[in-house]
């Protein structure tokens, strides 16, 4: 026995089917216009969680990138400051070599000493440079005031030795250890790491200002001064090299961060974005389904026995 079709039920069913198809069509259109396959977690919980983690990775690499920029900014300035310092030390070296000239009078040497004093003050200025935002490049693990202070006993370091660091994918420095850079060159005579570039210059300046020195004494002083200055220059150069090394590392970390971010973006997109080709075909499928439903509805529901019972 076949089921009886009830007229009212047949209408209800047709209407509800039409509504379902219309809803499907609207959903397909919604997906197409938003471009998202996963608009809320229930669309695909696993993919939504994947997308969430990928988004977190993206945010993290962005934060890392900001930290990296901060480090790069400081290290570029430190590198260029150390470059400037190298030039000044080179000029100072030439002045000291000149001072060894046996035909120079006391006043000639005093003039040289004055020039050296100027170079020394410039060096101190470089050692106290900031990144432009108030952070001292050579502040070590932190200082509020200029880290290098001129005292009667010579230039002292007020910062905390060591260096500040930021997490930028890997740890990168945001300051340079000023004490180690400027005050801790290896003394060529004692072998200890306590040679201050300022002290070396101060000593040479003091001696050049001392009148009536014998030629061999001056020669000796110039020689030892040059040796000490070269040791300091080496130290500055190696600090510059390590700043350059950090910048190199920064570049490769930046590349890695960018790769990680791209991978995360791709992951997020794979997880929640729509496959357009499939979506368009899906939409057309739904559209023809709806169309067919409408057509058949209008055809079938017209049919009734009463039509044939006229008159």
């Amino acid at each position, binding site marked *: 026995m076949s089921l009886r079709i009830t*007229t009212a039920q047949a209408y209800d069913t047709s209407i509800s089917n039409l509504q379902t198809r219309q809803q499907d069509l609207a959903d397909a259109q919604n997906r197409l216009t938003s471009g998202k396959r996963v608009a809320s*977690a229930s669309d695909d919980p696993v993919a939504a969680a994947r997308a969430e983690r990928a988004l977190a990775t993206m945010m993290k690499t962005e934060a890392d990138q900001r930290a990296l920029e901060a480090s790069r900014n400081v290290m570029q300035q430190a590198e260029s400051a150390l470059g400037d310092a190298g030039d000044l030390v080179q000029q100072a070296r030439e002045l000291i070599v000149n001072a060894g000239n046996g035909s120079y009078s006391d006043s000639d040497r005093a003039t040289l000493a004055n020039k050296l004093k100027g170079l020394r003050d410039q060096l101190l200025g470089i050692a106290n440079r900031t990144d432009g935002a108030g952070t001292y490049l050579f502040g070590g*693990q932190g200082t509020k005031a200029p880290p290098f202070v001129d005292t009667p006993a010579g230039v002292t370091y*007020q910062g905390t030795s060591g260096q500040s660091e930021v997490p930028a994918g890997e740890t990168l420095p945001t300051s340079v250890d000023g004490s180690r850079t400027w005050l801790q060159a290896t003394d060529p005579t004692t072998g*200890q790491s306590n040679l201050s570039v300022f002290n070396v210059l101060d000593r040479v300046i003091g001696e050049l200002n001392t009148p009536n020195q014998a030629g061999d004494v001056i020669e000796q002083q110039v020689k030892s001064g040059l040796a000490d200055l070269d040791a300091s220059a080496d130290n500055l150069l190696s600090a510059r090299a390590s700043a350059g090394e950090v910048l190199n590392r920064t570049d490769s970390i930046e590349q890695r961060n960018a790769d990680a971010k791209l991978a995360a973006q791709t992951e997020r997109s794979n997880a929640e974005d729509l496959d357009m080709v499939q979506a368009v075909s899906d939409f057309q499928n739904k559209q023809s389904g709806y169309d067919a439903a409408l057509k058949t509805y209008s055809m079938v529901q017209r049919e009734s026995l009463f039509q044939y019972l006229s008159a």
Partner: protein
Amino acid sequence: MGASPLMSLGMKAMSAAYMAMQTTSHNIANANVAGYSRQDVVLETAKGQFTGAGFFGKGVDVTSVTRAHDQFLTRAATIATSQSAMDAAHSDRLGQLEQVFQTGESGLGYSMGQFLNSFVDLASRPGDSATRQTVLAQAQDLATRFNSAAGQLDTIQAGVTEDLKSTVTTVNGLTQSIATLNQQIAAVRGLGQPPNDLLDQRDQLVSKLSGYVQVSTLEADDGTLGVFVAGGQSLVLGSNASQLVVGLDVDDPSRSSLMLDENGKQRTIDPSALGGGSIAGLLNFQNGDLVDGRNLIGQMATAVAGVVNQQQMLGVNLQQPLGSVASQPLFSVGTPQAIPASTNAKDAGGNYLSSVTLTVTDPTAVQAASYELRADPAGSGQYQLTRLSSPPVTQLVNSGDVVDGVRIDVPNGLQPGDRFLLKPVAQAAGGLTALLQDPRDLAAASPLIATTSASNTGTAAVDSLTMLSQPLQAGATAQVSFTSDSGDYSWQLTDASGNVLSSGTGTWQAGQPIPANASDINGFALQLSGVPRNGDVVTIAPTPPEALSTNNGNALALATLRDVTFIGRTMDASGNVSGGATATDAYASAMADIGVRVQSAKSSASISAAVSDQATQATSAVSGVNLDEEAARLIQQQQSYQAAAKVLQVAQSLFETLLQTTTG
């Protein structure tokens, strides 16, 4: 043999055809009335009259009008309706709950991530007040987002309560109508014929009712229908209807529960006994998913606020005088709740005799769960604590014990029969507040700073210095001196005037902190990179005030929280914690959890809707009206009417013939 039997036969046939047409027309008229059952006239051949020549038929009798109705199918359809309505209500509400767990940039996970990432910026520029302001703004945003999530949950709860109330009002109206119909049906029962239209109406009301609450029915001898809910509690009995009421839940006044009013006394109906109907769907959602959603969000709020506060308070802020103003917590969260059941013992003044207080001791071990606490039924004097998870986990605890990061204190003990609902995190998100306004309050600096000696010969450098507690000796300086090339070291802690406070030895291994146990020296854990050599020295001294504004030690520690698994760690019986998830993972899995629920609720709803449709279709195949069929019947009945009229015409002409014969 006269013409009169023929006449009466024709009359009867005409009247039968007429009644049939009347019924068919009634069917056509009611074709679109919900719950109408197709009616049929029952015809019976009249008993024949005996003559010597045999039995002669006396035509047709109309004995009754019946409705096409199948008790079994109707019952199956009402049960399917209940199931479908329950699943639909559940699915709808879950859809609302899912809005709280947004994906991507509008989600809580994103906010937590942004907030924790802002500490990286703080580490880059610890002295910059604009950066500090940004961190505070992120903290404020995080709190606001958690608040609004909690607010959404409150709105959903209010919606559930409102819906329950209006549904119950409708249900009470329906049961009242059923009781009235019962009365009418019983009154006409004596007439001996079924009151089809009244029966249809009653069936339709029961069907409507079962959309709200699943019922079972039992027809009594007097024709009245008994309607029962929740496995046998009567809603309608004869012409009496009981009232359903929505009241406060006995265990948790923030939730609603369904009660049956019995002569002014209200008895709670256990939601699990309801079986189906939209009320059951709402209650299941309210007592299950909504509670879970609230706990998940509360757990995240408690954990993130807790760990950030802990770390913030270990650092040093920039308030004057520098280094001597204690750092304040960044957040406060809603307090844990211990709610007495309304049935707990009270004193004469109506105050509860017993009380329970909860304290979060380890925010990282807090679980997304509620608990029930009652006296141990075995009488051990301990308390039985049940974690209301699926499956529930029960354990015995004493007052003062710490379970899942929460300490439970029962100062006065429990009265017999008392029970408490413990909700450690339910209010946490709603009460999350960012407390700090002044950028200088952020504790970016570390109280201690580690430096390697200039004369060190090894490659060891300070990798990180982490504070695990406040410095044990404020203002003290620790010096770690390596005494061999294989990592042996001796240390001493001296105060500001150089007096040795404590000293000891240890052995460093690559990747391991100095000291092995942070409380051994001064509350810090020092990680070295590179290798120290004999004679190398590392000094861990208080951070000098002039370095505080640019020191980022504590900001670094705060920034590492983005990779720390600080949510939902497992706490074993001896208080050790392990496992857990990062903020991102915790949110992603909470979101996926809710997503899976929505997905399965949607599919349950669509399956049960299909089942319900099918059952309705099966019922209507028996009871419903097909207009084509009625049209055909109408022609058939019209023809019988015409034929019967012909019989009458013949009888009349016979009679006339007879008259003419006698008069002629």
